[in-house]
């Protein structure tokens, strides 16, 4: 599962002989968005830090941090992040930006979720219509966010209509398209998804569906080899105005995906 992308190799610069490297674990949804391809070259140019990205799910990213395999993580699951800090694995968390989840479904919207006033109502419409809903079912950050939404809506996720697939976002979207089912996706994965056949975004915009990304530098007291210096400089860059402009300006299919919200 672990794909180590040695992106630093792609943009060697004149100063690369003296460049520092560090390892950052990020989530699949971040990598899928394409934003990394924009940020990493600029980080290298501004800070001299070449970042090795390790692309995994939120849970796995935190385990890599715990084991000292990476110097920092950029993930999206607040409760898991706070537990990570409490366990002494990171010194702090810094919120950087958010993107959002959307509910995709068949264009004819048999459960009528497009008229829903908020996320719990949209989910209640799906459940009471027992319209098929595809769940990631893979304990990913997106899956956890989906379960939290059902729980907040007071709806038990049981019955034939609820179909966990135990797979990544692309596979879940493919299954949903094949069945004409509803599915929760991060916006970026949906926009980049090639097989939209008869499906579209039917519900979006409830703040409960915002997905906060945070940066957590691994606690250097845990392992001698943790690169605390580059990790701190990367954090400074991630909350900079330069980062804000690049993050807010990033577009896929003419849509802004991420909103910078770091406090300086």
């Amino acid at each position, binding site marked *: 599962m672990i794909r180590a992308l040695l992106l630093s190799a792609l943009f060697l610069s004149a100063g690369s002989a003296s460049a520092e490297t560090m390892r950052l674990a990020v989530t699949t949804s971040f990598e899928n968005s394409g934003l990394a391809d924009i940020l990493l070259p600029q980080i290298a140019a501004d800070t001299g830090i070449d970042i090795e990205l390790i692309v995994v799910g939120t849970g796995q990213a935190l385990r890599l941090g715990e084991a000292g395999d990476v110097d920092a993580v950029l993930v999206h699951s607040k409760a898991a992040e706070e537990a990570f800090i409490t366990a002494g694995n990171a010194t702090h968390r810094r919120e950087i930006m958010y993107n959002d989840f959307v509910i995709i479904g*068949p264009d004819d919207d048999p459960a009528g979720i497009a008229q829903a006033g908020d996320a719990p109502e949209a989910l209640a419409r799906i459940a*009471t219509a*027992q319209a098929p809903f595809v769940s990631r079912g893979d304990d990913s950050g997106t899956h956890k966010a989906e379960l939290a939404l059902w729980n907040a809506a007071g709806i038990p996720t049981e019955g034939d209509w609820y179909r966990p697939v135990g797979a990544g976002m692309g596979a879940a979207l493919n299954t949903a398209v094949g*069945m004409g089912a509803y599915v929760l996706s991060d916006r970026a994965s949906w926009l980049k998804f090639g097989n939209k056949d008869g499906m579209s975004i039917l519900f979006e915009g409830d703040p409960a569906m915002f997905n906060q990304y945070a940066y957590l530098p691994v606690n250097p007291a845990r392992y001698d080899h943790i690169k605390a210096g580059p990790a701190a400089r990367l954090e400074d860059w991630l909350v900079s105005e330069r980062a804000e402009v690049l993050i807010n300006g990033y577009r896929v299919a003419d849509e802004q995906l991420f909103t910078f919200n770091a406090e300086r």
Partner: protein
Amino acid sequence: MVAALPLTLTGATLRRQGKTLIGPVDLTLGRIGVTVVIGPNGSGKTSLLRMMHGLQRTADGRVGWSVADAIARERQAYVFQRPIALRRSVLANLMFPLRLRGASRAQAEAQARAIADRFDLSAMLAQPAPSLSGGEMQRLALARALITEPEILFADEPCAALDGQATRQIEALLAGTAAAGTRLVMATHDMGQARRLASDVIFLLHGRIHETGPAETFFAAPATPEAKAFLNGDIVE
């Protein structure tokens, strides 16, 4: 108000992963009556109901209402074999469909209390819905489906998980609903129930309508050997 019925299916077909679940089906449902859908397990009873209700997209053909689809959707309701109750009170579950349609809280509550009375749910309005027994839950599901006064109600094996007394109660409520003018389309594997409630019958076999007609004729003298065998309790393949 222009009626959503009759409903006309023309070559309507559902497929999943290349396999035909139901169809092609040609069928017209008029404004009154109780259509009971029967057939062996796997013959497509649930698929037919879901297709008519628009829960699944047709791969071919058409499910045509007499009004625009969006309006037709507001005029129909569906009761499942295993209903989903929201983790809220019985009262809140009853109010939910009306609130979705923009009714005020006061108006929704008044209507919920009135229908609870008809469905013998008044004593449990404050109770959390998930704590209800199977029969109570199905009465709640039926009341929640009917509170919007739909023109047509689809019911998929609504008594399959119920005991005799609860079944009798649900059947009486369904018969009363039909008598009050709501079009009923119900799938059942219980031939006694089919005989008690049906005004006409659809007999499905392998995803197609094998035989259809008025209940009296169908039960007295089925035209096809398969329907005759099915009514005799034989295994029909």
